[in-house]
Structure formats: structure tokens, C-alpha cells
């Protein structure tokens, strides 16, 4: 067991899978010689050669299209989109092509692709680098969307994603890349896609979140327990498409109250979907409406005021205040 950062865990997962299955390929802008703009692919080209780990021309649609073409021939591409904000350039190839491939060919072809992209706020990146666009992807049928919140999950989820026979979008929160270390086994292991995890047990209210916001939720729960003696359960979705509603419902049946916390803007996001599913399956267990905690529906205000814009533990606590008072 080693203490790894999330980016080391991600790098390690790719290393193991490249070593295990020669059909796995890794490509994207600057991933080869330079080892990626965040060093996620450092040393992998040297180890596996330029035919398996390679730099691409600067074109996201090209990268995603290349992955589609390679995958229907049996390869398992890991295609890096350098920053998630650039995904619009590749949207047709991802959502309009790869995600539909199994359907269009009646199962004759499929696209076992993993798209990886860094994203997420709080690191003061330039425009269109930090945007949380996962809701846009999650609405596309035929693709799974994964957002790990820690090194252990990142490795296990990425290995699951690479082995999955359908396209998976794997989102890596930049703030979590090097913010803390965790015990990560050296061997390959999987964390199943589509399974949420209760990361903090509680009995009074459930906070549902994913990605970096899981840590914000935990901080708020901690504070809440100390100052108010109220115990909040925290659920890390881990996969946001599909959503593990069973784990959520089990928790809500116990706590009778819930809030959903996301870093993406409020409207039509993952939180809205969670609220809808709780409504469908557990409304009679609720003592209060399920609230969303999210930034306002504005353009991501890159750099200058992003810290005020992103949900803070304080804002989580005021939402908890509301649901507890009902």
C-alpha cells in the first residue's frame, strides 16, 4: 500500500491497464512526450511506446472521432480532452456518435472508450477550463459519467471504466489532483460504476454530493455535528450517470431529510435529477422538501470571484438549517 494523490492513482490505473491489455490505447494533446499538462500520463509513453501512448494534433473533435473509429475495431481508447470546457468541440463525436453506436448497429459495434478530462472550480484556471458540464453529458443516453472524489475511488473507478464495454466519461476534479493522499493498493482493483458510497454515517439529514463538493459536504457535516449536535449522513455519488438511487433512498428512509450539493449551476443538473428520483421513490419518507445547493445560473466567473460563487460549507449549513426547521 502506498500513499497516493488522486493524480498518481489515476496515472497508476492507466499504467496497470495498459500493461494488462494491449488493446488499451492512450492519446490526447500533450499526453506523450510531455506526460500531460498535469503529468497524469508521465512516463507512460516511454514505458509503452508511441504506438500505444501518443500525442494527437490539437483538435478535440479529432481526438474523440479517432477514439470512435479505433473502438469499433476492438481497441479500448483512453482519450484525454485536455480540459472539460473544451468538450463542446467534441460533443458530436461523444454524444452524437459514440454514445449511439451500440444502438445504431444493434450491438454489432460498440465504443468501449474512456474520455478523461480535468475540470472543476477553486483553482483559478482561465475561462472554460473549470466549468462543470457533467449535466450536459449525463443527459445523453448511452454514456456513463463518473466523478471520483478521492484517490482510492479514482483508481478503482478508472479501471472499471477502462474495462467497461461502453463509453464512459471520467471527470477529474483539478482541486483534488494533489490536495491530499490516501492509502491506495498497488495491484489493480475495481470500484463498480453506478454505486454510490455513504462516506459519513448520520441519522438526521442526508447530504448527497459528488466530486470536490463531497469534501465541502463533509466539512459542513463536521461543523454541524460540533455546533448543533445534529448528525448528517454524507453520500458520495461517485457515478452520476447512472445514479445509484437505492443507496440514496435507503439513507432518506432513515433520515427523512435531504439536501443535494453540486458545483454545477443550479438548473437541469445532477442535483435536479437526484431530487426527482427521491420524489419518485421516497416522497412519503420525507419531512421536508429536498433542497438543492448550487451556484447561481451564471457563466462560471473564472478566477476573480469563483470562491464566493462556489458552494461553501456555510451555504450548505444554511440549507441544512432550512430543512431541519421544517
Amino acid at each position, binding site marked *: 500500500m502506498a500513499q497516493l494523490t488522486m493524480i498518481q492513482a489515476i496515472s497508476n490505473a492507466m499504467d496497470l491497464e495498459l500493461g494488462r491489455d494491449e488493446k488499451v490505447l492512450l492519446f490526447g494533446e500533450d499526453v506523450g512526450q510531455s506526460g500531460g*499538462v498535469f503529468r497524469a500520463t508521465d512516463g507512460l509513453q516511454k514505458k509503452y511506446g508511441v504506438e500505444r501512448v501518443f500525442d494527437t494534433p490539437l483538435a478535440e473533435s479529432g481526438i474523440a472521432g479517432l477514439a470512435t473509429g479505433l473502438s469499433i475495431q476492438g481497441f479500448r481508447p483512453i482519450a484525454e480532452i485536455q480540459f472539460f470546457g473544451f468538450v463542446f468541440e467534441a460533443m458530436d463525436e461523444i454524444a452524437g456518435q459514440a454514445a449511439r453506436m451500440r444502438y445504431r448497429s444493434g450491438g454489432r459495434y460498440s465504443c468501449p472508450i474512456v474520455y478523461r478530462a480535468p475540470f472543476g472550480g477553486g483553482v483559478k484556471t482561465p475561462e472554460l477550463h473549470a466549468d462543470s458540464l457533467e449535466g450536459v453529458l449525463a443527459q445523453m443516453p448511452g454514456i456513463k459519467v463518473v466523478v471520483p472524489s478521492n484517490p482510492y475511488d479514482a483508481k478503482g473507478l478508472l479501471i472499471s471504466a477502462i474495462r467497461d464495454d461502453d463509453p464512459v466519461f471520467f471527470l477529474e476534479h483539478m482541486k483534488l489532483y494533489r490536495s491530499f493522499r490516501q492509502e491506495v493498493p498497488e495491484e489493480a482493483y475495481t470500484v463498480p460504476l453506478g454505486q454510490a458510497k455513504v462516506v459519513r454515517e448520520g441519522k438526521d439529514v442526508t447530504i448527497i454530493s459528488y466530486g470536490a463538493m463531497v469534501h465541502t459536504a463533509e466539512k459542513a457535516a463536521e461543523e454541524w455535528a460540533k455546533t448543533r449536535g445534529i448528525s448528517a449522513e454524507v453520500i458520495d455519488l461517485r457515478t452520476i450517470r447512472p445514479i445509484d438511487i437505492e443507496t440514496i433512498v435507503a439513507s432518506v428512509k432513515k433520515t427523512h431529510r435531504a439536501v443535494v450539493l453540486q458545483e454545477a449551476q443550479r438548473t437541469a443538473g445532477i442535483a435536479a435529477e437526484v431530487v426527482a428520483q427521491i420524489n419518485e421513490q421516497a416522497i412519503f419518507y420525507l419531512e421536508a422538501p429536498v433542497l438543492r445547493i448550487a451556484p*447561481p445560473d*451564471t457563466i462560471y*466567473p473564472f478566477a476573480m470571484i469563483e470562491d464566493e460563487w462556489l458552494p461553501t460549507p456555510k451555504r450548505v449549513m444554511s440549507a441544512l438549517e432550512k430543512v431541519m426547521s421544517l
Partner: protein
Amino acid sequence: MSAIAPTKPTTYLQVLDAEGNVVNPSLMPNLTDEQLRSLMHKMVFTRIWDQRAIKLTRQGRLGFYAPVGGQEASMIGSEAATEKEDFLFPSYRDVPQSVWHGWPLYQAFLYSRGHQHGGQFPQDVHVIMPQIIIGAQIVQTAGTALAFKLRKEKRVAFTYIGDGGTSQGDFYEGINFAGAYQAPAVFVVQNNQFAISVPVALQTAAETLANKAVAAGIPGVQVDGMDVLAVYGAMKQAVDRARAGEGPSLIETMTFRYGPHTMSGDDPTRYRSKELEEEWQKKDPLVRFRNFLQSKNLWSKEDEDLVIEEAKAAVNDALAKADAYQKMTIPGLIDSMFKTLPADLIAQRTEFDS
């Protein structure tokens, strides 16, 4: 003999050699002494400002910054050939062109910090906020150029992209649209040899990036991008052609960025050799043009020192002005989303009103 043959080689334009000698007098642009001095003034100013900006970024006093050292001739020579009414679509490294086209320096600093006011260009400044998405500015340039044509305005839309950017689909779409409509556009490809870490040889099999103009049916030339006179001359012709209704052109400037891709953690030693860097340092645009001007008694050490002081003072003033500018607020951000704020945003705003 194969019927499949490569595209014919591209024209390569150079006026000054690396020492500053005139090697192609026929290509010498028609510039007054004052105009020549002004080009040098802007290049020296930009070099000093760039060095200061790099330092300020390291100190955390600026936010996002993409160094420009080495590309001064390419940037300044091309912008200088345009008119104030011409519309510029910069990408994130093209801050110097934007400033010389009228963007107040303090606003460029606010942009770097991610302040919304950075992008609020004054009414008489025809520039849009630098583009992050590689290639998006190329299709937009075609659109604005078509607007000028439809309105019968004698204006030109001009834009910049890097060598890597020519791989984007949007790049081809933009030059092709502009060609199809014979719109008054000029596309400058600043070939600084690397797209972050990826060298041009890995980017494309095209012999030159200027050759990419062939597919769109528009003229394309390659220019010594370390030679401000060659760049100015090519750009002037392209701008004049566009203004005269003769359609768009593409100019590839052969240049080099001395620094990292941006100040956000890029390390050029991972993908560039020291020898290559030294080779390009020898082609420095300032050295070359300074020699040329001095041979004509148009530039002295005193001139240079004055510009250096001026640039330092201008950076300090701009920084002070940026520091003093009112901070952004979340309610202000929400208000800026629509002309008339919809009910849902009005509701969301209350959470931040205090």
C-alpha cells in the same frame, strides 16, 4: 511518374536577415521613419511589459498569462498594418495586438485576473475578449468579415491562431467560409513551432501551414515571423486586398515563444532542446530590427532607454488602476447575464444580497 504530387511550395517572405541586413529590397514596405521607429517602440515596450508580467504572475499579482517574448515582430508587425476600425479576434496569447489595437492595459490586467471588466472593451475599440477555445475565433472572424461586406463597410476582420490551432476543424471551416463569401478577413497563423509540447511535425503532414489555404481557395504565404518588416509588408497587402473586396488571405509567421506556453506550470525543457532555443534566440526580432534602424540612424540607446522607462511606468500605472478598480460581486455577475433578468435569477440573487 506518379500523378499524385505534393502541393507546390509556399512563398516565403523575408526583408531582413538575422543581422538586420536588407536581403529583399523589393519587399521593403513603404514606411516613414516615424512609422519604423514606432514599430521598434512597440516591440521594446512589449518585451519589457512581458518580462514584468511574467514576474507579476509569479508574485501572484496577475492571474492567467501566456508569455509573448520572441513573437513581438509577428504580433506587432501584423497589427500595425491594420486600421483602428478593423476588428480583431485575438486568442489568449494575443494580448499585445489587442492592447496596441486599443485595449487599455489595466483592463488586460483585469482580464488576466478574471475580472469581468477586462472584457468590457471601450466603444471605440474593435476587439473582443481573447479566445480560449482553439479555432473558435476563426469561424467568428469569417462572420464578422461577412458583416462588413454585407454592410459595405471598408473594414477588415483579422485574427490569430497558433500552429496547433490549424488542426482544429473550426480553422478550416473559418477560412473556407471566408473564401466562399470572399469576405474581408485576414487569418494570421503564428507558427511558434510547438502546440504546448507537440512540435509541428507531429501536428500535420502539411509541408507548410500556409499551404492549408490552398484547400480553402484563398492565398497563403509564409513569412519570417522574426522580421517585423516582412510581417508588416505581408499583412499590409492582405489587409489592402481584403479592404478592396478581393477576399481573405492567410499568413503564416515563422516565430518562436521563448517562454513557457503559459505561466500555469508548463515546463518547456520537457519537450524542447536548449540548442533549439538558442537557435531561435539568434533570430531575435528586436536585435535584428534594432541593427537595421541603427544603420539608418533611426534608433539610439537613449531611445531604447526611454521606451524601457515608459513601459515600466505604464505597467505600474495599469497595475495600480487594476488594483483600484471595484471588485466583482455575485449580484453584479447575476445582473450581467441577461438584458432583462428572468424570475429564476432574480430569486437566486436574493441568496447573495447582503
